[in-house]
């Protein structure tokens, strides 16, 4: 089947100045193979010597980057359009490493096991020495992360914390020791890190991270490692990283489960693309309330340190676009794909948040930010018990889930149909027109209230499920995982 392939300006001299050509093939790889055999000069510009697509060549099927589909194995349907879109990159000769500091003989000996890895080598070790990494928090995640980053020879390691070492920290915060109880975490961490590696510079910031100081602090660093323990700070770290374009090596832990990813790179999604809204205050207990297996942050923090080192080395295969989920109790790793959301309020195409906001209010920590805004909007509500009763009674019901696919993967109401809020306006034809009652839900009720209003404006009657899927899990089906 023939597909239209859009050719970018610099490659048109090879296609007889055509900006689009028709090429047969069942997958992207087949189409590109046929294209480059028909126009042989294209091949060396699209493919590297190893036969892989050059990484500054972006290929889209309609609007989707094939990196988020099945890459070159992506199957094509009739009518699909393939676009080849350049990234343009370069840099000074210095980029190669000549601006990175030289290694001393003492450092060459210390890092010898890195230097004999061709993937690191002298150049990579010099990059690590020239790098500046900021660990937000010197607690459960920050402890192992800072220790390994210091050991690896990150030239400048910043730490932010304002707490003192408590005996209950020592079950997991291994940068601190029993003699440090009562001492500031930063003083304790500095002493331990300097003893581990006196070659590096340690910068301590004894302050609470806030909207007022985050940008000035982050600006001085190349990579931010998020080891925070609360949602308000996590959204703050994310937004500051997006605004400053600093990659965020993210990790979080709770009880036996951890997550890690890399956010806020130019290519990939940010934390808000994954979690557009925070959980209601009090719903997700802190580690202090819910407990945490002490070794868990050791695993997640070292994954964050690994990703940080790979970002500095320019290594492929980082967690950009992937959320790694780790369950220590069942000893399983899983992965979710996370895509950049074009509607994301910070990193989307039309960002509405361009400066830091009040994150405590955003996360509902301060009282005025309630989540039950839907009632005021004149939206008709129904409860999870009412929905359960309807479904059990076999009454004709259409359960519409307006969350994102990655959220739907985590938990869902049985037989619900997923149409993300952002697509609802263009997918109204998928809604039933047979008198079934439409019940709309999201995670907690905010997005679904918007959806009900949108439907009402289009002449479609629907009810909002109060409390969303989380209320469903709490009160109807506790067997499912909440997020």
């Amino acid at each position: 089947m023939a597909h239209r392939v859009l050719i970018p300006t610099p490659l048109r001299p090879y296609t007889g100045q055509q900006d689009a050509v028709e090429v047969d093939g069942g997958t992207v790889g087949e189409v590109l193979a046929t294209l480059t055999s028909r126009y042989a000069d294209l091949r060396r510009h699209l493919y590297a010597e190893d036969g892989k697509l050059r990484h500054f060549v972006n290929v889209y099927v309609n609007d989707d980057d094939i990196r988020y589909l099945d890459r070159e194995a992506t199957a094509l349907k009739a009518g699909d359009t393939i676009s080849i879109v350049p990234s343009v990159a370069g840099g000074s000769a210095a980029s190669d490493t000549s601006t990175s500091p030289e290694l001393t003989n003492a450092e060459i000996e210390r890092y010898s096991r890195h230097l004999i890895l061709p993937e690191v080598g002298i150049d990579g070790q010099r990059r690590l020495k020239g790098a500046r990494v900021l660990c937000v928090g010197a607690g459960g995640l920050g402890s192992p992360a800072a220790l390994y980053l210091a050991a690896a020879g990150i030239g400048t390691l910043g730490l932010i914390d304002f707490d003192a070492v408590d005996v209950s920290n020592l079950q997991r915060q291994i940068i601190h020791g029993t003699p440090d109880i009562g001492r500031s975490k930063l003083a304790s961490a500095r002493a331990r890190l300097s003893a581990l590696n006196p070659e590096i510079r340690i910068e301590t910031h004894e302050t609470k991270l806030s909207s007022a100081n985050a940008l000035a602090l982050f600006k001085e660093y190349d990579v931010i490692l998020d080891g925070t323990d609360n949602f308000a700070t996590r959204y703050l770290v994310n937004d500051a990283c997006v605004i400053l374009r600093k990659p965020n090596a993210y990790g979080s832990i709770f009880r036996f489960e951890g997550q890690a990813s890399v956010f806020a790179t130019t290519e990939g999604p940010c934390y808000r693309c994954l979690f557009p809204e925070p959980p209601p205050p009090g719903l997700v207990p802190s580690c202090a309330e819910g407990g945490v297996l002490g070794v868990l942050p050791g695993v997640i923090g070292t994954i964050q340190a690994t990703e940080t080192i790979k970002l500095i080395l320019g290594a492929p295969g980082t967690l950009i676009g992937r959320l790694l989920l780790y369950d220590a109790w069942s000893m399983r790793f899983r992965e979710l794909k996370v895509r950049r959301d074009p509607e994301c309020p910070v990193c989307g195409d039309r960002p509405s948040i361009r400066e830091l906001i009040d994150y405590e209010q955003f996360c509902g920590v301060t009282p005025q930010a309630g989540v039950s805004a839907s009632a005021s909007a004149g939206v008709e509500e129904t409860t999870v018990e009412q929905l359960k009763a309807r479904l059990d009674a076999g009454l004709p019901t259409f359960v519409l889930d307006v969350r994102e696919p990655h959220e739907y993967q985590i938990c869902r109401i049985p037989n619900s149909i997923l149409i993300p809020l952002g697509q609802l306006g263009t997918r109204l034809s998928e809604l039933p027109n047979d008198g079934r009652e439409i019940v709309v839900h999201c995670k907690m009720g905010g997005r679904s209230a918007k959806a009900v209003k949108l439907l009402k404006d289009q002449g479609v009657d629907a009810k909002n499920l109060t409390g969303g899927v989380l209320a469903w899990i709490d009160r109807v089906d506790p067997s499912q995982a909440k997020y």
Partner: protein
Amino acid sequence: MNDEQEGRVGEVTENTVRLKPDATIVADAIEAIRRHGAATFPDECCGALIGRDAVIAEAFAMDNTTASGAARRFRIGPDGYRAAEARASALGASLLGFYHSHPNEPARPSAYDLEHAWPNFIYVIISVTNGVPGDVTAWWLRDNRSGFDEGELRWHTGS
């Protein structure tokens, strides 16, 4: 500005300079590149070169979206590239290439530039030393990707 370049000034007409037998750049565009390079120093600046009939009429400043340190790298992602194409269309012109700065480095393409280059585009590089814009050069990727050929960049000092 070295003597050799000044020696070619006589070939310059009015406010344009010829780049190669087939390309010319408006002096305003070079001034815009110089200002942009100075403004973003010590980071690299970047932008698109837009024109028509082989005349670069506009240096369109763009955001440097690199994630690997803007002091040593620039990057214009697929969205930026599309924005450059859109700008060119809006002007009824074509996208002719891109420019970027080399802070405290000579205006010569690096190995990294070569590795990432697209054919048939003009690459203009400006050297910025301690915040002061210096040499501006123009380069074309050889069709076999073995290196760049330098265009004859003639600089009009009198505009």
